[in-house]
């Protein structure tokens, strides 16, 4: 049996015109997780690509020769697997960079007529875990609220860009007054949500069929919000974890791309180690300004459109090497940091790569993809050859399964990707 991941499992019953939703059959609420090992997921996207000649090895297997970028993280070679020849099909969108909104969803033709995005793997995993942790997921961005995380009805989850605000959310305890006010606010909110549901239900009784569907979607959204707020309320009284870290100070200048990525990356081991969340997404965005990296005079987007200009390629490599170096530092941290179960890296599947295979021509083929940790067999370059790409979604199925989800399919998948 092929069980497709279906986000809208809870179907509406429309009995005598009243919208009634089936109770939630999965997730949310305390689960018996003590016995099961904790699984985590981190996805990191360099949205302006990674220069292919410096990233992709030309040889395969365990003996692949590390390229310029891979040399930088070669110390971790046994902790990751490289993939080539993976992509989503039909990623030509309305705008040239639209493939970034579907990197984690695989929906076809982003932004073109009839397009509606679908759930991203991180949100699928977050839905599965629910409020097992204080935060179902963290969606982070280096510059803007744009993100690659989408809910099951295609709504973008905005990215948080301030490490200081994140740190506060994660670890800084509110004053008793603040907690009381927050609790009061949630309680007031509760009665409002009740009222909203009753309005929607009443209106849908006399509405036309197309309108009733809209009202039901609204009703369901309120119901979910209500449940989430109840979960949030449960966590409000629980003490936040304490960490021995100085709160970060935000990097104000967008030009300090590297500084901003570094701060976000530093939070990841803290989030995971304190089990504040088990799902983290990071989108390394186009900052639109010249990054403060010695030897670099153009902004990263312009450099990615190098037009074969050797000077630009040199600068592009300079910036990307810094990004890969930061990823290496993150790997080091995840390896060195342990919780009761052992090193974080062994419990965490880390996806690092890009939605562009060749940023200079906006091609979303043959993507740079690396998977680290997560208990997988590592050390090889797995190539999918034969002239056409294999579905990146097959890898996603494997990643979701590693999160303990029973899925056989996701997006464009044709199966699960296995390697040894």
């Amino acid at each position, binding site marked *: 049996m092929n069980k497709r991941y279906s986000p809208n499992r809870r179907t509406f019953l429309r009995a005598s015109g009243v919208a009634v939703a089936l109770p939630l059959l999965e997730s949310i609420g305390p689960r018996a997780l003590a016995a099961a090992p904790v699984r985590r997921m981190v996805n990191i996207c360099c949205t302006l690509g990674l220069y292919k000649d410096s990233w992709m090895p030309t040889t395969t297997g365990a003996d692949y020769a590390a390229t310029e970028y891979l040399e930088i993280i070669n110390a971790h070679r046994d902790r990751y697997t490289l993939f080539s020849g993976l992509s989503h099909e039909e990623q030509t969108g309305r705008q040239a960079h639209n493939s970034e909104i579907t990197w984690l969803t695989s929906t076809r033709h982003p932004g073109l*007529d009839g397009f509606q995005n679908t759930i991203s793997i991180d949100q699928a995993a977050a839905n599965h875990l629910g409020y097992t942790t204080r935060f179902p997921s963290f969606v982070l961005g280096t510059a803007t609220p744009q993100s690659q995380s989408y809910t099951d009805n295609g709504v973008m989850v905005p990215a948080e860009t301030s490490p200081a605000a994140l740190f506060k959310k994660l670890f800084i305890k509110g004053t008793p007054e603040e907690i009381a006010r927050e609790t009061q606010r949630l309680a007031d909110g509760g009665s409002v949500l009740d*009222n909203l549901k009753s309005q929607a239900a009443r209106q849908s009784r006399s509405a036309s069929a197309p309108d009733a569907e809209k009202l039901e979607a609204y009703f369901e959204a309120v119901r979910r919000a209500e449940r989430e707020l109840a979960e949030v309320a449960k966590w409000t009284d629980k003490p936040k974890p304490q960490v021995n870290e100085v709160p970060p100070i935000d990097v104000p*200048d967008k030009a300090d791309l590297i500084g901003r990525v570094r701060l976000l990356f530093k939070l990841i081991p803290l989030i995971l180690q304190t089990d504040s969340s088990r799902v983290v997404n990071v989108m390394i965005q186009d900052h639109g300004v010249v990054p403060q990296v010695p030897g670099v005079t153009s902004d990263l987007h312009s450099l990615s459109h190098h037009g074969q200009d050797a000077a630009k390629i040199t600068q592009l490599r300079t910036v990307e090497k810094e990004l890969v170096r930061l990823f290496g530092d993150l790997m080091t941290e995840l390896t060195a940091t342990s919780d009761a179960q052992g090193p974080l890296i062994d419990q965490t599947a880390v996806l690092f790569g890009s939605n562009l295979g060749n940023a200079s021509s906006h091609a979303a083929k043959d993507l740079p993809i690396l998977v680290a940790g997560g208990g997988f067999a590592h050390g090889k370059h797995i190539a999918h050859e034969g002239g056409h790409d294999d579905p990146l979604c097959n890898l996603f199925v494997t990643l979701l399964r590693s999160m303990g989800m029973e899925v056989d399919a996701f997006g464009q998948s044709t199966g699960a990707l296995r390697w040894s």
Partner: protein
Amino acid sequence: MRRTIQPLALLTLVTIVMAPRALALSDLESAVEALFSTSCHACHSNTIITSLDLTQLDYDLANPQAFRTWAKVFGRLERGEMPPAGTPRPDAKVVAHALATMEKALTKANLDARRGQRTPLRRLTRLEYGNTLNDLLSLDEDIGHKLAASLPAEADSGGFDTVAVKQGISAFHIRSYLQAADRALDEAIKTGPRPTSSAYRIDYATSQYLAVMHDAPILGGGITKGLDDAAVMFIDTGSTYLMHSDSEGFRVTQPGIYRVTIEAYAYQAKTPVTLTVYRGNKQGVTAQLSELIGSFDLVGDEPRTVSMTTYLKPGELIGPSVADLEIPEGVFTNQFFLPDQNIKDYAGEGIAIKTMTIEGPLTDQWPPASTRALLAGVQFSADGEIELTKSAIAHIEEIVIQFGERAFRRPLNAEEIEEFTRLALPLLADERPFAEAVRVPLRAILSSPSFLYHDSTGGLLNDRQLATRLSYFLWRSMPDAELIEAAEQGQLSQPAVLAAHVERLLEDSKSDRFVKDFAGQAYRLYELKATSPDSSLYPEYDDRLGHAMQSETELFFRELIRQNMSIDQLIDADFTFLNRRLAEHYDVPAVKGQQMRKVVLPTDSPRGGLLTQASIHKLTANGTTTSPVPRGNFVLASVLGKPAPPPPPNVSGLEPDTRGTTTIREQLAAHRESPICAGCHRKIDPPGFALESFDPIGGYRERYRVSGGEMMYDGYMVALPYREGLPVDASGVTPEGWAFDGMRDYKDLLLEHDLDQVARHLTSQLMSFATGADIGFADRGAIEQILAEVEGDRYPLKSLIQEVVASDLFRSQ
């Protein structure tokens, strides 16, 4: 709530019953069978030659994917594009029969899918939500924008974000609405003692901080110069740690409207220079100057006093900066940042800033109008405290009735009044303050489906609903009192009254929101700043130029509407809107000052019409290079409404090359020779070729710019100036075989052959935007009817809008 019987639903029912007989699938199959097998299958019986395999077509038109494919097949057949020229012509009768059957089937499928209603419940977009809160609560424009920005982004689904079927809703929306409502109420309800307004004056000549910084031998010190009466800035630093209000000790303690007044003069300047004023946030030591709130020309050393108002909240600051300064030949101003350098003896242009005064918060009434409007019936004491004149719950009921009616754009029914009012009871029972208790019903109203969605009863819009649709079309916000009054008196649906209101709404400055949002989406102006141009190839670009580009297109479009100009002018006009910065970019002489104004173009100017505007050139380029492919596709999709299909799988874009040995045209030539690519590219490329005369920032070019490489200078990598490369060839041949050389020729071809199609597309876009539904197959007749009304006058834009509003499509759900 009582609902009346829905006339349109009835109508649809009647239509279906009266149809001669339901079209069985086999009708469609048998009607196309002969045509497909004789004229189409040679190419379309697999996906090797083209991506369309007619043997695999799904005949179930209820499947949206199949429907789209069939509609495309119909279109190409109807326009005679298929079978392609040069192949044997199919029998005319066979084609006519196939077309007639397809048309019937497609129309029926389209109407079926709608279930009697073109537009299902339409949600306020983010922008509409922000505007509505502004208008409903009398908030400052800025607050509305910020509230809107706090909501989930609208999904990019290929059409307007007003289109109801594509609008999402999620738990995440609901949580955001609750939060936004909370914040809006925080802003709207202000009670207690009147905030003291004060004026803070900064005298830059006596600033102690600057006295140190003028001479500080540190990195970034010594880039300003002290005078007896002012401090001089020579460099636009983007972010600043020097002149902003925070470093001079000004702190915003109360959010509100502030007046900023600056005295300054041009220093050592031979040309007009520009004083820019930003609002920003302090982060660390430096302030990000994120929002430009004013820009002023300074000429000569006579001091000028400029003044502007802006909304400020705690943590924000004001920072002046400089622009349009000429730098003497051979000087790198960046060198002055070095610790051992000082700008004192520099001879280049600067701006001497004497004083900056920040006064506020400005309150003409206390408690402010927003609070009084919201808390109807409540009295206020002399010190701004709430004074109840009856029981708290009676007050709350009154507020619910009055505020609810404005928020819902219809009166509340008894049940609703009771439900909302009741929400305050537990708080009143807990003896919480009135101001807190009243917020709960208000929050519920502002998150209610009746607020967030346009009211719908199916069928023809009633007068109230018509007022709502019209107001959201042309103001992007709720109707005003006048519109509501016309609706209440049942007059709005009278054609003359409706037309007069269209006229009135367009005259009002709130219609600028429509222009901005429509152009933002229809012509993709929202993407204008998505890429920043390569600073070594296009050093003349900066944000103010980008801003002027956007204004040009918006003002131009607004002018076409206000003056009811023919759509001819959209394609080719002898005027545009410029300020000095953009005029220099366009090489148009004698435009002074930063204000955008209407300018008649010199006869030899390559400008005139939308396709010659820098905004369009910039948003269709990637910042470094241009390609005829995305640009040609912009013309096809956004101007002509005939977008090319996406490339087949496994085809990737061209690899751009800026080394100067080959042009994009040469690269494209190879791929146009491939039969797979040529089918579409013979249509896509020609308009793109015509646009080749314009570089990625909309400068007119006869040669491409080529990267000049870079060198080490004093330990820093420095980009060398660009070089001139190969010549631009802006000639081409349209698929119809008409040759053109450059944009001027191409515009003539558009005017001569495609004007109807340009008008058809614009009308469809206006209709879709206004009604919140895509133009479906069944709506084609209605669009043609509108076009027929205004064709004689060559489609004047305001008339088009009037006809759209007067149409049945606009006036039905």
